[in-house]
Each structure stands twice: as C-alpha cells, then as structure tokens.
C-alpha cells in the first residue's frame, strides 16, 4: 500500500510539473490545447493527491505500523477519530494535507471560473501548479509520509493533551485558511501575468478569500479555546511565534477584504490590493516555514527539520516573483480615481488598512526580532508581551473606532458637521456608556474604558444602520437578503465588538490570587469565596485522576473540581482546571490545582470577567461570514454591470 501512496505522490508531482510547464508555454504562445491540458493536469493532480491521502488515512485508522508515520503517531488504544487526526499530527501528513487542500481549491476554483475568465485562467493555472510542484516535490523527495519499516508491536501514540476534539478540528481549519489564501494570490498573479488588471480577479475570488479568512479566524479561536480549557495557565493567547504565524496572514487578509471594496467601487488602491494579496500568501507560507523549521524558539517546539531550508528558498522565490510581477505591471495598475478628501469613506478604509498592516508588520517584527538581533548584534533577544500589548492597543483601539465610522461616512467627501449629524446617536450612547462605566469603577484601566466606550459606539452604529435599513425596506430579512455582503459585514463587526469586550474585560479587569489552602479553608477572590473541601483520587481508563472538590459562594454558588491526571502510559501528568461559568456575567471562575503540599494544596484562582464573549464572538463571526458568503444573484448582477462600466 505504501508503494501505491508513493506512486500516487510521484504522479502528483509529475502532473503539477506538467501543469506548470505546459501552462506557461500554452499561455505565452496562446495555444489553447496546451492551456486546457495544463488545467486538466491540475485537476488530475488533485485526484492523485486524494488517492495518496486516502491511503495514508486508511493506514492510520487500521494502525498499519509498517508505515513509520502510523507507528510514530498512533497506537492501538487510540480511538479511531484521533487516529485519523494523526493525519495532521506530524510534518509529513501536514504537508500532504497542504497539497490536498491546495489542489482541491485549485481544481474547484479553476473549473468554476473557466468560462468567465478564460484569458486569466490560462495564467492562474501555472501559478497554482508552481505552488503544487513545490509541495509535491517536498513530499516525494524530502519528507515522505510513506516511509516503511518492519512491523512494530505498538505505535508511539498521541500526546494526551492533544487527544481532544479541539485538536481534531483546529489544525485542518487553519490549513483551510492558510492554503485558501493561495486562491486570491493565484488569480491576482494570473491576472497580472495575463496583463488583465481589471477587477475580474477580485470578483472571482472574493468568496474564496472570505472563506479562507473565516476558516483562519475560526481555527485560531478554536486553538485559543483549547489552550484556555486544556492547557490551563489561565490565558488564551500568548503571542507565541506559532500563534502569531496564523494571526499575521489573517490581519493581511482582513485588510484585503476591506480594500477590495474600494477598488470595486472606485478603481482605487489597485497596487495596494495586489501587494496585500501577495503579502497574505507570503505570510501563510512563511507561517508554515516558521512552524516547521525551528528557527525561532516557540513553546510549540516543532522539531528542527530538514524542510526548513527548502521552505526558505520557496518563500524567497515567491517573494521575488511577486515583487517582480507587481513592479513590472505597475502601469496597468493605475487608479481610475483619486482620493478627494481625508474625510471620506475611501479615506477611512485606507486608514483601516494602514492600521491592520501596521499591526501585522509589528507582529512580524516581534517574531523576527530574535533572528535579526542574532544576525546584527550577535546576541539573540526576544521581545515579550508588553511590546505586543502596547501595539495591540495603539493600533487596535483606533481600528475599533474606525469600524463604527467607516460604514456610515459618505463617499468621496464628508464634512465634520454631516459626520457628527450621522453619528449623533452613537456618540451620545458611547459618551453615556463611558460615564456610567467610570462611575461603576471601570476607570481602573484606561485602555479598558476606552475599549468599552468604542465598543458601545460601534454597537450603536450597527443598531442605527439596521433599524434605518429595516424601516426603509419594511422587513429585516428583506434588508439582509438584498445586501448580504453589507449586513454580513455588520454581523462580523458585531462579533469583533464582542471579542474586543471579551479581551478588554478578561485582561484589564481580571483578578488572580494564589494561596495554600488546607481542607476546609477558604480564600476570597473578586467577589467569590472559594473553599477547598477534600481530595478525591480515582482511577480512570488512562490515568489516575486527582481532584480537589471546591465549593464557592458569592457572585454565584456551586461546586467545581480542579486537579491533575497522572497518565499510566508515559508517567506524564497534566493539570485539569476547574471552570465555573457565570453566564449572567459571561464570567469564569477558573481554578488551577497548582501543587500538593502535605495536606494542603496551592491553588491559583482567576476571575475572568466577560471572557465567554470571546467564544460567543466566534459563533457570531461564523454566522456573519456565512451571510456574506452566501451566493447572491442580485449582487453578482450589480458587480457585472459595474464591471462592464469600468471596462468600457
């Protein structure tokens, strides 16, 4: 079976290479048969990669330990679902998943657009094929998932903390996002190579970008939630390089999703958009490089591996290619109109873009800091949380404010007077909320109260918009149905507001206390009195489970358990935090069993106000994205009409 898998990957590599070579030749010489052949090869490449993936998946589920990959990532006692998730548990499988998703996206997007964008597709195919060639080459020659051995008795299994439903869903979500950013890149590069720099590539890829962006965003949130409930240090984001690697392309894609609206409408920001698309793609490949190469110290500790240099070459090659392409096509990317006023919707979108990209580059700077200081100062240095927190506030708070202004300000030219008139409700609500919160004592954190005030502002703008629109059309469903993209956008903005409130609440107004408690003793944290009752030890299926039984009174009353699991298999242990959610306040009482000390236990108790809004935001985010993604015939017609106008 492994031979078949290996053969399927070689076929994939051959097909990708053919799609690249035939695609370029066909497009340059304008030979339709070669162009079609390249396109078919790309689709066939998906089929052969799918066969290879199916072979690997079946080996994992069957626990076929003649596959080294199955032996090192599964074991007999591992449930089927987790055995399957071992597919993306290691480097080789992850790379195969990359290739599978890439060829899948490529085959589908190229097939769906082949009539509408024939001239552009001719060049899109070789771009996809180039990326696929690289990944299939790595899988064939450097890091193969089909290495075999003589049969082992049992496999090495999967680390206990990763045997968790979140870890089944989180990596493929991220991959769907990462790899999905190749689609807009391939179409943009295809359009530039074909010297067809009109807006068609934007329209063809809008939904693809949106879907990739949704997966990437939701995937990160799943990872955060996993860290929060499973890793148990009490946080959900640590600014770790590997986490940042996923955040950076997401920020670039967020900027892109906004600036395309300006290009569609006004024919501006054309250069900026291709730069953003290239940046998002580069960052997604760079992210894969970062997580796989081990150049940067991360708590995720992926082993230093042989594919690092290959990825570095690929990142550099694609960066040089993108730069050359954009520079050589600059004359085609001239804007149709100019920015008329610094106070207009175009301008606010531009500010939003600058802030998002600035935040993205700041994070990149932080991630690369150890490498750069090593290279230029001879000593590696890291920058920690304060740096990131500072810039998150410096760039994030203005972004939040712009989220309220942007959708309401007039196109072309607005006056301060008209803007204030439009925003009179949001401004008064925000000011009132600010004053009330100050009285309630939220002034203990300046960034916190600014964030809350801005959130109230944005929330009111959304409500005002929806109410006004509903009055005009007569029904809410009709309103949303008529302009899904706009109202889907509002729903996503609402999710971001919830998210911002959650972040501000849990970080700026949280409480932490550490104390040694003997059975019967009580500690008080932020309105809760937590009592340690007794210790229970139970023998579970895979571990010995120690649990401290705690009762609490105060803001809410109840019982929770917090403890540790000692795993029989490898003698490792993990903390199992006790969380009580007070839904009325969206607040968590979070108890970490730190260490046993004689009869007593050191407990770390955290009260995290509003933290649950983060997870609610995730669901709202998905709903909003789906609304904006949903096919809309009317919108399509409008775009085509606008496009015809633009090309005339």
């Amino acid at each position, binding site marked *: 079976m492994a031979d078949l898998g290996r053969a399927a990957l070689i076929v994939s590599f051959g097909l990708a290479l053919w799609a690249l070579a035939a695609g370029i030749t066909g497009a340059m010489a304008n030979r339709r048969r070669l162009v079609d052949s390249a396109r078919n090869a790309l689709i066939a490449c998906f089929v052969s990669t799918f066969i290879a993936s199916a072979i690997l998946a079946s080996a994992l589920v069957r626990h076929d330990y003649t596959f080294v990959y199955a032996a*090192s*990532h599964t074991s007999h006692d591992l449930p089927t679902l987790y055995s399957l998730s*071992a597919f993306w*548990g*290691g*480097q080789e499988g992850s790379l195969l998943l990359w290739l599978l998703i890439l060829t899948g996206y490529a085959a589908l997007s190229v097939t769906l657009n082949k009539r509408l964008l024939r001239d552009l597709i001719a060049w899109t195919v070789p771009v996809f094929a180039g990326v696929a060639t690289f990944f299939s080459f790595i899988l064939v020659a450097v890091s193969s998932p089909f290495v075999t051995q003589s049969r082992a008795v049992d496999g*090495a299994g*999967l*680390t206990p*903390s*990763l045997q968790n439903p979140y870890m089944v869903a989180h990596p493929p979500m991220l991959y769907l996002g990462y790899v999905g950013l190749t689609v807009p890149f391939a179409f943009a590069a295809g359009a530039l190579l074909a010297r067809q720099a009109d807006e068609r590539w934007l329209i063809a890829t809008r939904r693809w970008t949106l879907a990739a962006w949704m997966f990437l965003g939701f995937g990160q949130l799943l990872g955060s939630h996993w860290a929060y409930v499973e890793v148990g*240090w009490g946080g959900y984001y640590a600014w770790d390089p590997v986490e940042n690697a996923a955040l950076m392309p997401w920020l670039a894609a967020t900027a892109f999703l906004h600036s395309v609206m300006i290009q569609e409408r006004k024919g501006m920001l054309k250069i*900026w958009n291709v730069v953003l698309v290239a940046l998002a793609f580069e960052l997604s490949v760079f992210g894969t490089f970062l997580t796989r190469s081990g150049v940067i*110290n991360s*708590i*995720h*500790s*992926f*082993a*230093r*591996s042989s594919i690092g240099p290959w990825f570095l070459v690929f990142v550099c090659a694609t960066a040089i290619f993108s730069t050359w392409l954009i520079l050589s096509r600059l004359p085609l990317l001239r804007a149709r109109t100019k920015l008329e006023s610094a106070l207009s919707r175009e301008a606010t979108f*531009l500010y939003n873009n*600058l802030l998002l*990209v*600035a935040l993205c*580059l*700041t994070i990149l*700077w932080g991630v690369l*800091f*150890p490498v750069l*200081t090593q290279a230029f100062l001879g*000593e*590696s*240095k*890291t*920058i*920690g949380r*304060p*740096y990131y927190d*500072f*810039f998150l506030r410096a760039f994030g708070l203005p972004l939040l404010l712009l989220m309220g202004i942007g959708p309401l300000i007039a196109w072309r030219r607005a006056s301060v007077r008209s803007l204030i008139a439009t925003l009179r409700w949001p401004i008064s609500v925000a000011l009132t909320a600010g004053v009330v919160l100050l009285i309630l004592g939220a002034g203990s954190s300046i960034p916190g109260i600014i964030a809350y005030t801005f959130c109230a502002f944005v929330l009111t703008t959304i409500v005002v918009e929806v109410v006004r629109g509903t009055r005009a059309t007569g029904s809410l469903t009709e309103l949303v149905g008529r302009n899904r993209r706009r109202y889907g956008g509002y729903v996503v903005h609402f999710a971001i507001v919830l998210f911002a409130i959650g972040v501000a609440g849990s970080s700026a107004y949280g409480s932490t206390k*550490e104390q*040694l408690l003997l059975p019967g003793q009580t500690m008080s944290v932020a309105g809760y009195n937590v009592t340690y009752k007794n210790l229970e030890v139970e023998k579970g299926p895979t571990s010995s489970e120690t649990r401290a039984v705690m009762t609490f009174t105060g803001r809410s009353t109840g019982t929770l358990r917090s403890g*540790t699991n000692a795993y029989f298999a490898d003698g*490792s*242990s*993990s*903390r199992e935090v006790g969380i009580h959610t007070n839904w009325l306040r969206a607040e968590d009482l979070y108890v*970490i069993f*730190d*260490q046993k*000390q004689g009869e007593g236990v*050191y407990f*770390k108790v955290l009260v995290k106000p509003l933290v649950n809004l983060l997870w609610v935001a995730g669901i709202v985010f998905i709903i909003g994205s789906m609304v904006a993604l949903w096919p809309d015939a009317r919108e399509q017609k409008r775009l085509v009409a606008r496009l015809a106008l633009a090309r005339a």
Partner: protein
Amino acid sequence: MALAIAMLLAVFLLYTAVVGNSTPVLQPSNLAGHTGTVSLTGEVIGPVAGESHTTGLTFGLRDISGKSQTIPINFHGSVPDLFKVGRHVNLTGAMKNGTFVATDMTTKCPSKYTTTNGS
C-alpha cells in the same frame, strides 16, 4: 502611503530600541557576564529538590547540546505539567550569588510534532 508605512516602522523601531524591554535569549554556556533579567533555555539536570512555593525548586540546567557546565537554578512559581529531568525548558530570571533565580518557566511541549529523541 509609503511614507506612512515608513513612519509606522520607525515608531516601532524606536519603541523596541528605547521603551521595549527586550530580553536576551541565552543558554547556560553564554550566561556569564549578564546581570539583568534574561531568558534562559536549556536541559533540566537532576537532582530536583525543594519546593517551588516556599524555598524554591532547585535543579541544574545545561545547554541543550549537552556541552556546557551545569548552572544551579532556584525556581519560584508554578511548575509546568511537563517539567522533568531531561526536558527542555525556558526560564526567565537573573543570576544572584552564583544561582540563577527564576520566576517563570515554560516547557517545550513534547507535542506530536516533535521527533527529536522521541521526547
């Protein structure tokens, strides 16, 4: 626009240079001469003794390559789940009277991604 980006770049260059509390990342072998707070990465060497909440947890740390002298560590705080002899850990702290006094520790998670020496 390019100007705006350049200015923003300048801002965080300045920030990291002046305000930013960047921490040197070291291994035991190049710790000598550093008196301020540093981030120290290495391999845990036994014996592990003491108690992290009272007297402090004591153990040794040497370079991950294994080719360095072992530095005594005194750690106060919450010990991560995955801490044990032989693990690679990252400590934040400073040298005090020949002992590295640390208050923050993260272990490199032996995730399913790792292949080096099967840890």
